[in-house]
């Protein structure tokens, strides 16, 4: 980072659709994927005489988010009209918040599991509640230049979250988005699905270049059309290089050039300049006279704070502190969502060994969830059942080598640990039996005994395989130890 002659300055603007059943000002459904213009009514169509009525749940979700982001919340809130003409904006204005947003001056801590940058807080400038516009699709097929307007999305509740330009690298930008998405999912505020458009990102980026005469700022560029966090990272990387090259060629600084808008082209992996707007729009913001101001009192704030629940950062810390998980494992679990963390906690309590529980959940449970594309709430092995299994392994009742077999059986047949153990014919094998087994094996394999005596200790591996065939319950490590011991004894 310090090898490049410039500092990258990034601010992110994120729009999230709130997880409500209905729109911000009317009762139309917000469900994704319906045929065009089937989720509309006079209110979201902006028909003459229609009036907005605030969705209480959307308001509460927005408030929760503001509090979770450690923001200041104003006690009296209003909504403003942002006036402009566009076909996907049926009223000719968007109901938004201008100078008194729902939340201000907060922060979100970011960190990198790969330690490429130290953990630090990114300041949140503001978050406000507004309605979404519809979708316009430009149909330029077959010489047509029609635009098609779908107003299903018009009126959907959005929270616009704007960071200060505190991010200093593409990796930080990605980490910010990852952490924000996780937080919003934990709060139940949004499902943050970029494919379905419930999370959209625009970035503002420029460089501070170190020159012999001091620091020079390049013109700020707004980058749009990034459809994944990975795309954001790549776009920022590309744009930083592009801006540096451009500055070297033109020397233009931020004071000398207006803010530019560029779109990310994911195929070509470049940003492309978009048509400059004629003049910067004057939205003529004024308070919407159709909406009454909302008073937020202490009681409401306290109640909402109480509903936040345990957030990812706190949860990560608790898992490390109280369950002795390492940072990486804590991160893996928390990133999977609260349900999975709860699953882990239950398993850990049930078997009394957080570390073992952590390993099993991270590896075996997550692997299956991924393979089967399922969420933890559909996972066939309950937390108590897995806890039971792990407890038995811990007590030595089930040889750890057979543990996975039992688990697989529980998974495939829905059996309890006891049933699975019985079905597999697993029994604890005592040392006497292992000794007897090893003596048999050694007698049957003089060549291997010779090899081991000769120094090729690895040769004993073949015996372990044979032991497993004769008695699958024998613990391979124990077999190895006893075989070597017997060979040792015999040779001395």
């Amino acid at each position, binding site marked *: 980072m310090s090898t490049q002659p410039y500092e990258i300055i990034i601010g992110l603007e994120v729009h999230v659709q709130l997880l409500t059943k209905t729109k911000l000002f009317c009762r139309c459904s917000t469900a994704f994927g319906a045929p065009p213009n089937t989720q509309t009514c006079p209110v979201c169509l902006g028909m*003459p005489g229609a009036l907005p009525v605030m969705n209480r749940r959307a308001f509460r979700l927005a408030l929760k988010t503001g509090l979770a982001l450690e923001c200041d919340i104003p006690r009296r809130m209003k909504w403003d009209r942002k006036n402009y003409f566009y076909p996907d904006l049926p*009223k*000719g204005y968007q109901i938004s918040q201008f100078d008194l947003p729902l939340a201000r001056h907060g922060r979100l801590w970011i960190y990198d599991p790969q330690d490429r940058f130290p953990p630090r807080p990114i300041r949140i400038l503001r978050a406000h509640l507004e309605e979404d516009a519809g979708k316009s699709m430009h149909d330029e097929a077959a010489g047509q230049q029609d635009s098609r307007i779908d107003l299903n999305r018009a009126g959907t509740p959005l929270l616009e979250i704007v960071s200060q330009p505190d991010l200093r690298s593409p990796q930080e930008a990605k980490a910010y988005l990852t952490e924000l998405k996780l937080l919003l999912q934990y709060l139940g505020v949004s499902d943050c699905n970029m494919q379905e458009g419930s999370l959209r990102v625009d970035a503002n980026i420029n460089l501070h270049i170190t020159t012999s005469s001091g620091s020079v700022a390049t013109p700020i560029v707004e980058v749009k059309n990034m459809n994944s966090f990975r795309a954001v990272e790549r776009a920022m990387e590309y744009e930083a290089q592009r801006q540096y090259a451009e500055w070297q060629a033109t020397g233009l600084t931020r004071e000398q050039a207006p803010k530019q808008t560029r779109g990310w082209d994911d195929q070509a992996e470049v940003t492309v300049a978009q048509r400059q707007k004629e003049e910067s729009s004057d939205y003529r913001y004024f308070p919407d006279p159709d909406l009454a101001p909302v008073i937020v009192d202490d009681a409401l704030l306290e109640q909402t704070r109480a509903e936040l629940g345990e957030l990812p950062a706190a949860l990560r810390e608790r898992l490390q502190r109280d369950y002795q998980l390492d940072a990486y494992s804590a991160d893996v679990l928390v990133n999977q969502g609260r349900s999975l963390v709860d699953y882990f906690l239950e398993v850990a309590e049930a078997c009394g060994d957080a570390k073992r529980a952590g390993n099993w959940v991270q590896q075996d449970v997550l692997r299956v969830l991924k393979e089967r594309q399922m969420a933890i709430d559909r996972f066939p092995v309950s937390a108590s059942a897995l806890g039971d299994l792990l407890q038995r392994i811990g007590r030595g009742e089930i040889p750890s080598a057979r543990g996975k077999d039992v688990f697989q059986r529980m998974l495939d047949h829905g059996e309890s640990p006891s049933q699975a153990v019985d079905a597999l014919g697993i029994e604890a094998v005592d040392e006497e039996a292992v000794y007897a087994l090893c003596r048999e094996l050694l007698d049957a394999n003089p060549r291997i005994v010779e090899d081991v005596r000769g120094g090729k200790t690895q040769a004993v591996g073949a015996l372990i395989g044979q032991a497993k065939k004769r008695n699958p319950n024998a613990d391979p490590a124990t077999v190895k130890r006893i075989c070597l011991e017997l060979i040792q004894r015999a040779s001395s």
Partner: protein
Amino acid sequence: MNTILQQSAADLLARMQAGDLSAVEVTRTFLDRIHRTDGDLQAFLLVDDEGAMAAAERVDERRARGESLGALAGLPVAIKDVLCVRGQRTTCGSRMLAAFRPPYDATLVTKLRQADAILIGKTNMDEFAMGSSNENSAFHPVRNPWDRERVPGGSSGGAAASIAARQVPLSIGTDTGGSIRQPASFCGVVGLKPTYGRVSRYGLVAFASSLDQAGPLARDARDVALLLEAIAGHDPLDSTSAPRPVSPYASQMDEPLKGLRVGVVRSHLAEGVSAAVSSAVEAALDVLRSQGATLLDIDLPHGRYGVAAYYVIAPCEASSNLARYDGIHFGFRTHEPDMLSELAAERRTAGAEFTESALMRLYCRTRTEGFGLEVKRRIMLGTFALSAGYQGRYYQKALQVRRLIRQDYDQAFERVDIVLGPTTPTTAYRLGEKLSDPLSMYMGDLFTVGANLAGLPAISIPCGFDDQGLPIGMQALAPPFEEGRLLRLAHQYQRCTDWHTRRPKLP
């Protein structure tokens, strides 16, 4: 003359309830009257003969079966064409909505249906409620029944004329700066603007959201009370609607006026007001005094800024409310083939510098063709007053003045129960007289804008005629939600005067 046309809504209701009269007879009578007189007056934009007769039949059938009926059962009500009636052309007096059929009813209309009123038709109005003479209707002006060369007032000109001409017993208008009261005054009928929030605005096509209110017009206070009770009330679909129960206005009107404190702004009866108007109002004050009211002089010091503040705030809100009329989703759209060839021709001449898009041209042509002059004037004014660099000086300033005007009234109401004065400075002027001087027309709103800016209920009551036989109205204001007090004042006044019973001579 047919007695049905002479009787009040309250009396007609009583007769129908007594079985003396059927809803069909009543509706038929008024429909005939409309068809006979409206070719000349043009108070209506739409008359729904079929729907009204069918509704009247249903009321009679249900009454015959002994079913309980709504409070207005069988009474024809005319609705200003700014309120949405499902499936029925609702034009707002504009070319922009000339063919628009709303897919829903305004809440007020729903309430009228629930009251079993007969929705007889939609009345003519100034375009998008902008105007004080009904000359801004895109279709045709309305004529004052008292003198057909004169304006009925506006913007609810059709509503007021229809009562004066006995075309209907009850009418609904809307009032943003005086649009119920001023035409009521010019037409010699009673018109009431409720407290802001008393009547739902859902389905009332917005002109200025913080000022608009729908309200009743009728021949007397009792009829106005009847209609107000039916339409008032909280509406969950309107965030600005007041969650207060509706008072039983009709039963509050019989209390005598003894002890009522009436405040008068002396300057409102001085220069700027015609002699006929001020003497009629002075005479009315004498009547009230004789009924036991106490008169006090009050001052509303910021009242003189009312017109200026109103003509900033209302256009600002209108410029935003009317942005939706863009030819995209509903309503009028310019003729696209013509537009595209016009654009192509310009592009050819101008060459590379030509940057206007088809979308922009669509917006411009649609709004140029769809809106009338006064609407355009106000949209431009409002856009300007909200624009960057000017908003503080105009819009914000006007809001501050508004608060001062409200404070004036609050202080006055600590000393008086009613504020009384003329509704308008003059009687009805001639058609065409003020069209070339919009500012002079605006000044006619001098006494009425205060109630809208302050959100207060206000009523216009007929109180005399000038020497040309033109009606004069007096206006009373009360504190918020005291419509009952206004109606009581009007009713008691009407018990010992007969101005409200006079009717224009019509062919």
